């Protein structure tokens, strides 16, 4: 079976406009939550499309796509992978999008209802819909492999990586995967407030005082490659292998969390089995950390049930907010950096630990080989992914 490895990372997030800035900020424990129109949000400060996106494309696309294009450029540079140097069918784009081109869409609907239908621009038909970032990315980089767009709210980032691995196993050597989100325009914020999961005091995963999350923008894009193809082209770095992935759904109630954590437990166990590792092999867990008392309690219970020992648990997203589909992608990027440097970042914004878990309070030196990442989506989506330090001898074993 082909193995899927991550060879490049690009980050556009509240914590930084590059991967290394994000990593430094995360380890330093800097919080990036600010006030916008009376709400707490995780904005990406200083992000300007100018400079990272072709001016022609800026007017045709939403902020969410700008961030996606900028993160993709970084990830390709980081991997030293140039799609144009390969067969056009050798590269795919598989991204998650939870909510599409919010600001663009609001502007166009506003124009329609205040000025009439002739005020709607030609670009509304290609900027707002959920496939816009994937389409623009494949056109910009000339990639003709199978594309996909996953929509599963907060679980989407992990689902895009699971789908990327499926595309690789079916014969496309390289995939641009991950996701970004830009849900901080006024209408998107109002829509999110009806989820009854927004906090007015801050995003504090696993804190005894957790009362919801802060929505944020940004995310990450990863270059995922068939390990053998990456070796053949002389890829200089491999952050880790996507060794296991699984998704389940609570299928309980469209708004309320399930009364038990059975389906999250099942996602974690399936991902571990898929990676052919045991819970004891896992060095640390990056949790979903939804930060409602009920959802945190369920995840804590699930982790205890799967591991049966005090495994180190972190949720650095507390520093930046929940980025919907961008969140899972960013969390995986962070987990891969932690594997690389042997240091686990702390749970973001944790003051009063509230659950019976080994929560990482300060960055912790930990030379792990395997990490489990969870992400859940509103409505009951559960996804888990197992990342492994990549060993070439494993490649030879696999033939």
């Amino acid at each position, binding site marked *: 079976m082909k193995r899927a490895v991550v060879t490049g990372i690009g980050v556009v997030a509240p914590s930084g406009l590059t991967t290394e800035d994000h990593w430094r900020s995360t380890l330093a424990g800097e919080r990036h939550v600010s006030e916008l129109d009376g709400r707490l949000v995780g904005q990406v400060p200083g992000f300007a499309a100018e400079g990272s996106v072709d001016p022609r494309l800026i007017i045709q696309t939403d902020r969410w796509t700008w961030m996606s294009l900028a993160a993709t450029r970084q990830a390709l540079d980081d991997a030293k992978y140039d799609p144009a140097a390969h067969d056009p069918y050798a590269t795919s784009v598989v991204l998650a999008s939870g909510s599409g081109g919010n600001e663009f869409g609001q502007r166009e609907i506003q124009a329609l209802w205040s000025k009439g239908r002739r005020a*709607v621009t030609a670009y509304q038909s290609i900027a707002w819909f959920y496939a816009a970032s994937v389409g623009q990315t494949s056109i910009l980089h000339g990639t003709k492999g199978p594309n996909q767009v996953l929509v599963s709210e907060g679980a989407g980032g992990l689902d895009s990586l699971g789908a990327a691995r499926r595309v690789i196993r079916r014969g496309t050597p390289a995939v641009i995967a991950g996701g970004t989100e830009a849900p901080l325009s006024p209408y998107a914020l109002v*829509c999110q407030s009806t989820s009854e999961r927004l906090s007015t005091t801050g995003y504090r995963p696993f804190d005894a005082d957790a009362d919801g999350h802060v929505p944020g923008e940004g995310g990450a894009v990863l270059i995922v490659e068939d390990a053998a193809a990456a070796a053949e082209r002389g890829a200089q770095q491999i952050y880790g292998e996507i060794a296991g992935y699984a998704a389940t759904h609570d299928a309980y109630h469209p708004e309320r969390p399930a009364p038990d954590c059975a389906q999250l437990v099942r996602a974690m166990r399936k991902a571990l089995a898929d990676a052919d590792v045991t819970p004891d092999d896992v060095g640390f867990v990056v949790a979903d950390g939804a930060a409602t008392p009920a959802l945190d309690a369920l995840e804590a219970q699930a982790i205890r049930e799967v591991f049966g020992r005090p495994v180190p648990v972190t949720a650095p997203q507390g520093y930046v907010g929940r980025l919907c589909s961008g969140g899972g992608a960013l969390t995986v990027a962070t987990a891969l950096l932690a594997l690389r440097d042997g240091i686990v970042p702390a749970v973001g914004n944790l003051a009063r630990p509230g659950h019976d878990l080994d929560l990482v309070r300060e960055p912790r030196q930990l030379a792990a080989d395997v990490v489990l990442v969870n992400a859940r989506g509103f409505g009951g989506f559960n996804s888990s992914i197992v990342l492994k330090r990549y060993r070439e001898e494993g490649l030879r074993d696999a033939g």
Partner: protein
Amino acid sequence: MVTGVGVVAPGGVTRAAFWDLLTAGRTATRRISFFDPADFRSQIAAECDFDPRAAGLTPQEIHRNDRFAQFTLVAADEALKESGLDLGATDRDNVAVSIGSAVGATTRLEDEYVNVSDHGRNWHVDERYGSRFLYQALVPSSAATEVACRFGAHGPAAVISTGCTSGLDAIGHGHQLIEDGEADVVIAGAADAPISPISMACFDAIRATSARNDDPEHASRPFDATRDGFVMGEGAAVLILEELEHARRRGAEIFCEVAGFANRSNAFHMTGLRPDGLEMAEAITDALGQARLDPTAVSYVNAHGSGTKQNDRHETAAFKRSLGQHAYDVPVSSIKSMVGHSLGAIGAIELAACVLAIRYGVVPPTANLENKDPECDLDYVPKNAREQRVDVALSVGSGFGGFQSAAVLRRWS
């Protein structure tokens, strides 16, 4: 294996009504009734006469969901009933959900925006005037959640949103979940309900939709020399995909097999198509290869056939490139001539039509085809359905963003 089919389409909700429409060659396109379209360039659409209460949805499901998610639930309900699958006796951990949609809850998002912005007056909108279910509208993943919750499906669930190929891609995704052993059963389909002012306005702006407003019944004219764009539609279709042994063990009636699925991107333009049809041809060839079928084995081609000038030439070229001389012999038709173009939903609705073509031995026609575009020189089954045994059906889709998809269905024996 396909073991169930459910359809919500213009001209009649239910699979039977849909098939009656197609085999009679009737069209369901008409002047828009959902809002006053007088100011719009294109004032026509294929609307569903849909009563969610009569179709079996609960008041809460109706209140919580946009029309596209309501369509999804009703089509899924019909497909499951028809499949005879007893969910109580099924391991629901292995039942997955894969729903395609191009534009999700766009209609509800727009309706609510009018309220919270006071008719587009205020950029800083007032949430007190909005539905408490706006979040479900913002994230179209709600359609997959609704299906999972209604049927207790605990397997992998997702909405697939690749524009106008969403329906084909969602069913293709479901097919791959079964191939990879990640599910025994997949509730796979697609829905869209985009007949709203913002959707009509944005397609007006790029003149993609037909302006044959004085003759709505004959406005959707794929492959005809006088075609002038697509006619907006809405609807949903859901297929029950089932792993072969699982279907056999319970003695299910097997309609046909999903024998191949492939997709490619043209990496060319968000809305433009190169006339050579190269990438669609690649997808067709890949899908036929997975099915281990020679192009000459194809007995029916369900075209994307949107009725725009460039699309119909693009895919005619793709068929010639991938099927060779057989492209001239095989019947090719576009049901968009009758049910319009429901964006992401149509790929699933067209696959449903292929399942029924195999089952009943009837090839649906291309309505309104009077005079072929000289550059579209295949057998497009003009106006009248054709009784003919169909063993292998090929369905293709093409979407904004450059997406090209193909699926092959084969009679099961």
